């Protein structure tokens, strides 16, 4: 492939153009230097490796079963068919029922939307209270919350089963929404607390002088100023909750399973002939929502995970 050569040639041309005003800036590099070949070569090889599984998913989901049995996972489809997609969506079997992924998809929507809204509503108000309305003891609870984010979920799995059973929500979507809100709280609260703390205090004081209270300042001052952080939180929560498997399988019943659980049941069903093309179509459909969020949000996603990364 001549890709790297072209790339580095272009880089060299630019370096030359920049240096036209006289001898300044770094020494212009030769386009095909060993360094450039090494850098771009390595990056390209790694990029191909990272893209391969996505490519395999797409081509497999577009092939018919006879073609899969003849070829290998990397060979492009000869005859493109969308039938596997249709089957994955509406008639793939999980061992319990045969209505495909659509049921799981709608369950996931019914789980994700309220969970995202509830968790962000709670965490943003909470972060606002922690940043601007400090009261004695608040920091202690916040510290517990942050340390708690490191506790393996398995430790709290059963106590939550008991709590949900006591309040009559075990096995319901509402219960699962509550669980997602609880476990989203540490990182989201941290995110909002840090953001609100960075808003100039004069604004807050001015609003207080004008007679605005706790909710007034939140709605009229903080909310309009913090759209970016809300977007980051939404991205973080949509991908996190959509991709959850453990909570879905523990706290809901089979007919309410989210998409990830249903996908796993379809692909790893022990009965019947393995239909690899339907399986890959189903896998791709399940991955599509977070992928679309990822590709559309771009830099904001990176900000989201960077924020998630500093949760220590």
């Amino acid at each position, binding site marked *: 492939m001549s890709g790297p050569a072209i790339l580095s040639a272009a880089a060299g041309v630019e370096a030359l153009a920049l240096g036209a005003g006289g001898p300044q800036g770094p020494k212009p590099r030769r386009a095909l230097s060993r360094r450039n070949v090494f850098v771009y070569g390595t990056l390209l090889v790694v990029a191909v490796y990272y893209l391969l599984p996505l490519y395999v998913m797409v081509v497999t989901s577009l092939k018919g079963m006879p073609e899969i049995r003849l070829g290998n996972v990397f060979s492009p489809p000869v005859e493109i068919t969308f039938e596997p997609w249709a089957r994955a969506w509406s008639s793939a079997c999980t061992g319990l029922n045969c209505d495909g992924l659509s049921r799981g998809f709608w369950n996931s929507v019914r789980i994700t939307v309220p969970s995202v809204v509830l968790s962000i509503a709670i965490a943003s108000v909470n972060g606002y209270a922690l940043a601007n309305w400090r009261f004695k003891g608040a920091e202690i609870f916040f510290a517990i919350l942050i340390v708690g984010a490191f506790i393996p979920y398995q430790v709290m799995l059963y106590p939550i089963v008991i709590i949900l059973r006591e309040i009559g929500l075990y096995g319901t979507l509402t219960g699962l929404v509550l669980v997602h809100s609880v476990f989203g709280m540490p990182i989201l609260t941290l995110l909002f607390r840090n953001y609100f703390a960075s808003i100039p205090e004069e604004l807050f004081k001015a609003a207080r002088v004008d007679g605005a209270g706790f909710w007034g300042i939140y709605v009229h001052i903080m909310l309009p100023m913090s759209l970016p952080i809300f977007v980051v939180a939404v991205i973080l929560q949509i991908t996190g909750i959509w991709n959850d*498997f453990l909570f879905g399988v523990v706290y809901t019943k089979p007919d309410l399973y989210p998409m990830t659980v249903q996908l796993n049941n379809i692909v790893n069903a022990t009965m019947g002939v393995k239909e690899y093309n339907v399986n890959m179509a189903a896998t791709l459909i*399940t991955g599509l929502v977070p992928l679309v969020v990822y590709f559309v949000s771009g830099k904001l996603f990176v900000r989201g995970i960077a924020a998630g990364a500093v949760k220590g």
Partner: protein
Amino acid sequence: MSQDRSGRPVRLFQNLNAKIASIPMVLTAVVVFVGGTAWTVLYSFTNSRLLPRFNFVGLDQYRRLWTTPRWHVAIENIFIYGVCTLVFSLVIGFVLAALLDQKIRFENTFRTIFLYPFALSFIVTGLVWQWVLNPTFGVQHVVRSLGWESFSFDPLYSQEIVIYGILIAGLWQGTGLVMCLMLAGLRGIDEDIWKAARVDGIPMWRTYLFIVIPMMRPVFVTTLVIIASGIVRVYDLVVAQTSGGPGIASEVPAKYVYDAMFLSQNLGQGFAASTMMLLSVVVVVVPWAYLEFGRRGRA
């Protein structure tokens, strides 16, 4: 509202709205995180089976846990997986970040490609790699059809190397995140450091190894803690890719806990195993928190 002697409302009602807003946080912290953890640790000393019952049996569950072969396999696996994930994702993540930091073109494109697996769930990751590593159609088949007839690579069907099959998928999913963190760290290094090193004629690799990496210590520590706390939780990936098989060769602690609690009605074992998981996290997180926040407190 009752008044105290100074004529102001009782302290409990000061700042009342903020306290109301913090109720969910307080409940989560106290009831779920502290209460739930304490409850699980406490009940790990009982012989609860189908339902939790407080029938104190001391360390019996732990004794049984550490004599169960399945738990030994799980511990061995998580150890191999953990060490390899730490080493490989740090090395690969750093090298990729260093390459992207060379003022290259299409940096955004490359970064997007390296990071997209992180947006996918472990279930999707596990299922894709289950298919790519399928011995009849996947990598092994392709290499054989290229002429290397005796080539054998079927990690998901071989007890000895199955954990490395899972490792490949795990690295594919998580290295992008490490790269992003490292890139942020590299961007935080002062440009003058590079210039000074170049003036002194220090080769690039030595600058990285002896100047830049030591300067990035905080980034490395944070990344380490993030990777480590992710490793302990590994569950969905194994369930999707191998369901713990072949046999019990790819069991991990998180799966042992789930199976004991919800499949084999052996709650006590599940509590004991999850307490062991907690212990391993404490061993990692407490020294780190002490180093990071203890130091900051003194400064």
